């Protein structure tokens, strides 16, 4: 419990640092948001007025505190381009990203774990080589290629699944596979190597000496011990998917966080970009936090140290 509170405090420090960094970076890049927003043919008066309402005339430190103060109230400012609250825009986009990330993760983890466990059990035999070949293919295939390939086959050629995502379950299947494909490969590979390592441990001999058969040895004794690195990887994958799968979202036209961020960059929409980056940071930190808690659920030694 004490450990958790300590971790939370650390998290807040990290978050503040990230906000500061983003804030400075976006102000260092050239280009004036006011002129971007207003276009070229406006008079100085309008520019001054807008600068004032956007607090851009204040010192940068004051702007920072104003922004953090807003954040605490859940206010991330207004989009320059759409003149809508950034918080609202992120909340509108997030459900799409969330659905995509969950579906992709389920696909990736189920496939990855099954392939990895099978490969480990049949080490150096045909299924091992076959599955590891598949997962190497998965790891090395870029998402945009997988996405276009799937889209071409299933949506364009065979017309079994929709081409564009419209929020329905069916329309999310292709993007989820395209996004999860990569992760499935890495989960499979790390599961295999971690499980093989666990199978070399002395307690596996003890389990066999007790009279347990192969499957029970793996499921009851080796698997739990081998899951730590796998969980780490899964948590990182999930948080990176949740922070927006830029490519899959673009190819399948899903209005998620990734799309929001890319269009914010294209439009020089600073508050939106700032908001998405901060949101993403929170998600990544939360993901790691959950992974840490899961460790101690899995391994009593970590629980004790905590």
């Amino acid at each position, binding site marked *: 419990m004490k450990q958790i509170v300590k971790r939370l405090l650390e998290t807040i420090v990290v978050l503040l640092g990230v906000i500061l960094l983003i804030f400075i970076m976006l102000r260092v890049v050239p280009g004036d948001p006011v002129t971007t927003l207003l276009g070229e043919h406006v008079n100085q008066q309008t520019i001054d007025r807008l600068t004032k309402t956007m607090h851009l005339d204040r010192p940068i430190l004051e702007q920072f505190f104003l922004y953090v103060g807003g954040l605490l109230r859940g206010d991330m400012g207004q989009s320059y381009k759409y003149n809508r609250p950034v918080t609202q825009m992120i909340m509108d986009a997030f459900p799409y990203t969330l659905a995509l990330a969950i579906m992709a993760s389920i696909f990736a983890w189920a496939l990855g774990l099954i392939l990895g466990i099978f490969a480990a059990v049949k080490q150096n035999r045909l299924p091992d080589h076959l599955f590891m070949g598949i997962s190497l293919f998965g790891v090395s295939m870029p998402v945009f290629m997988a996405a276009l390939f799937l889209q071409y086959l299933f949506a364009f050629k065979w017309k079994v699944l929709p081409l564009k995502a419209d929020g329905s379950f069916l329309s999310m299947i292709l993007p989820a596979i395209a996004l999860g494909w990569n992760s499935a490969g890495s989960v499979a590979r790390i599961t295999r190597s971690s499980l093989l390592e666990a199978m070399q441990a002395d307690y596996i*001999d*003890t*389990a066999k*000496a*007790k*009279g*347990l058969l192969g499957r029970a040895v793996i499921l009851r*004794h080796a698997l739990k011990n081998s899951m730590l690195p796998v969980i780490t990887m899964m948590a990182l994958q999930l948080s990176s998917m949740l922070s927006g799968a830029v490519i899959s979202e673009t190819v399948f036209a899903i209005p998620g966080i990734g799309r929001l961020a890319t269009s914010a960059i294209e439009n020089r929409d600073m508050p939106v970009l700032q908001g998405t980056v901060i949101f993403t940071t929170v998600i990544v930190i939360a993901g790691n936090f959950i992974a840490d808690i899961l460790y101690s659920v899995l*391994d*009593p030694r970590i629980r004790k140290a905590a």
Partner: protein
Amino acid sequence: MAMSEKKEKETVTKTDPEDVLELHDLKSWFYTEKGIVKAVDGVNLRIPKGKIVGLVGESGCGKSMTARSIMGLLKFPGRIAGGSILFDGKDLAKLGEKELRSICGKDISMVFQEPMTSLNPVLKVGRQVSETLLVHNPEIGREEARKRVVDMFGKVGIPEPEKRYDSYPHELSGGLRQRVCIAMAMICRPKLLIADEPTTALDVTIEAQILKLMQQLCAESGTSILIITHNLGVVAEICDEVYVMYAGRIVEQADTFELFDHVEHPYTKGLMASIPRIGKNPERLYTIPGVVPNLLHLPQGCAFCTRCPCATEQCRTEKPVLTEIREGHWSACFLNQAKSE
């Protein structure tokens, strides 16, 4: 020579009903890329009912591999290349995985060398012991299994057994962990307990307690013990019979008193001389010169000839066979055999 042939014939064809386990010409070979490593090469060994048999030798002489062969725990690329492991009228070497596992843990159990690593770190120790019970007697149910395990914990001298049931291995000391392992091995009252260097990883003060505990539990349930050790002190303490192993073969075999009274084989003599003794205070402890030979390139003759102080030309060219040199005392050494004739 004639005698040894007679013995070999006898042991291969007939099993003694008084024996709980018999190894006949057991060969466990490792098929490595560099060649065949004969870790166990033609071992004959008998464990009589209710007796404690010691298997002694240096590291790498094949004693652990002998034990692992019995339990079907040889790791790739090792496998049983020949011979038989007779237990209860069955040849364990030829049993399928499923049949072998139904015997392991129930009729034959094993205590390993390292109590630190031989327990699963993420499972409660009580669960790990009750698992053995439940695998072989699924009908008794979890409640009853827990009760019996707690009982057993008490028997093996674990304080607060009820509480310790829910401990994880890292919360226990080495000695307590080994007691858990013994509880695990004895919970089904096996006919044979194989203890692979059970006290090597423990403090000397704990060693005697653990040995005594095993001895006492086995006497209660009529369990025989095969104890594997490099420590002749342990042998003198508890064993009825001793087999000395060198480079995958048995080189000397006798009952414990006979062996300690009349050491015959030069290798066993070397082992005896290397025991530190209170009172005698030599400058340096005696060591057998050289190391165990590479099992890939064994000498043509006796495997010990490169280190033996009394090796002759015959030792370098011919392999000595285990021969009875005196009633109940066997040695694989030309010198001993010449002396006895």
